[in-house]
């Protein structure tokens, strides 16, 4: 991008413009990508749910496809910031901003999403895992922009859920837990994805928690509890105005257990 690493992409602006006003960012150039056509869409094709990077949060909220087949994303779409902010805030921006308190990064980790970036040297696809490098830092190069977010298409015996705890609407999460579950034909856990919000320098993929349930029935209360405990172990929250670190870890456990149970109910109903 012209302006090198001193340029910033302006999408919905709902994170970037406040940062500019607080003088936390002072790029010499802003590149407004809102005029680029063809970046606002939600559709299933080629084995993926595909979302254009400029898709607004309000469009996710209004999407029947998201509500029926990807409830984990719908859960977030009605809780991100507030309805007015969601009219402008974008899917791509929420992810590429790299804020651990944003909701979509944890969900994308749970869903094992892929991100498509376009740059001067062409296009490349990255996995969500490894994309979130550090607070406000992602694997995107300064000459690239995120164009598409891809999520493996929902299978019939899968379900997801996102729960977050916040002090009030519009505040950042105290903690959040994204759970995506697939069952095999015997009703055992085939795959589990667990992503955590606002409890570390980046969104966290709780890998040990993901492995703990493999091959087990979802009626096993002990196993479900273990997933919650392992998720809490994966969290590394800091003590701040939103609560002490110990409390946040406990909330990760509680939210993960609740989210897992809701994901299971939805998986039994065929994703709903």
């Amino acid at each position, binding site marked *: 991008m012209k302006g090198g690493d001193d340029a910033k992409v302006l999408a919905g602006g709902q994170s970037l*413009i406040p940062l500019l006003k607080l003088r936390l960012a002072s790029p*010499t150039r802003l590149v407004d990508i809102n005029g680029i056509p063809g970046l606002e869409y939600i559709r299933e094709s080629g084995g993926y749910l595909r979302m254009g990077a400029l898709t607004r949060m309000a469009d996710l909220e209004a999407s029947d496809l998201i509500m029926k087949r990807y409830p984990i994303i719908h859960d977030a779409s009605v809780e991100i910031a*507030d*309805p007015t902010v969601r009219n402008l805030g974008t899917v791509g921006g929420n992810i590429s901003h790299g804020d651990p308190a944003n909701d979509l990064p944890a969900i994308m980790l749970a869903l094992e999403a892929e991100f498509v970036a376009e740059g001067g040297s062409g296009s490349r696809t990255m996995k969500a895992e490894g994309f979130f490098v550090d607070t406000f830092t992602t694997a995107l190069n300064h000459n690239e922009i995120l164009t598409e977010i891809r999520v493996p298409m929902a299978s019939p015996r899968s379900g997801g859920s996102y729960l977050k705890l916040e002090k009030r609407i519009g505040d950042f999460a105290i903690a959040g837990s994204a759970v995506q579950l697939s069952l095999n034909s015997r009703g055992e856990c085939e795959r589990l994805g667990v992503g955590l919000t606002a409890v570390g320098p980046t969104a966290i993929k709780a890998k040990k928690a993901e492995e703990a349930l493999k091959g087990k029935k979802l009626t096993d209360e002990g196993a479900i509890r273990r997933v919650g405990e392992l998720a809490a172990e994966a969290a590394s929250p800091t003590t701040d105005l939103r609560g002490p670190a110990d409390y946040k870890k406990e909330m990760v456990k509680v939210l993960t257990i609740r989210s897992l149970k809701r994901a299971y109910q939805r998986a039994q109903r065929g994703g709903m």
Partner: protein
Amino acid sequence: MEGGKTKMHIAVTLNGKKYDADVEPRLLLVHFIRENLGLTGTHIGCDTSNCGACTVLVDGKAVKSCTVLAVQTNGKEVLTVEGLAKGGKLHPIQEGFWEKHGLQCGFCTPGMMMAAYALLQKNPSPSEEEIRRGISGNLCRCTGYVKIVESIQYAADKMMMAERKMEVPAK
């Protein structure tokens, strides 16, 4: 555009009237509305996109005008609180806030009314819960939410009645 040195030309339709202006790229929409156009009905509250006092409609969608650059509204239609009343007659939303005492200090009122306007465009007969969710991006520092919700219910009823009357053939 570098450092705000060069001005950009924008053409914006605001409350039905077309405006052409040369503005710095960094100028916020709320400052453009208040300072360049002199329309001070749109308030600046928190300036950090939390409070919603600056809510206006851009192409029919409610946005916080303190978190939008004026240049981003080039070619678009903006509606502010000054655009609600028509021909000297209050809009049903304004009438609702009047009748139901939907304001105390009045600071949040323009933003509340614009958020309510956007809500009722999408959902003409919202439940109390839907109204509360619909205005959840707007803060009232007097905490007068009960009356604000009643005001919006009043407006919804009034607008529905007006709609129905139009459907009944004139006798």
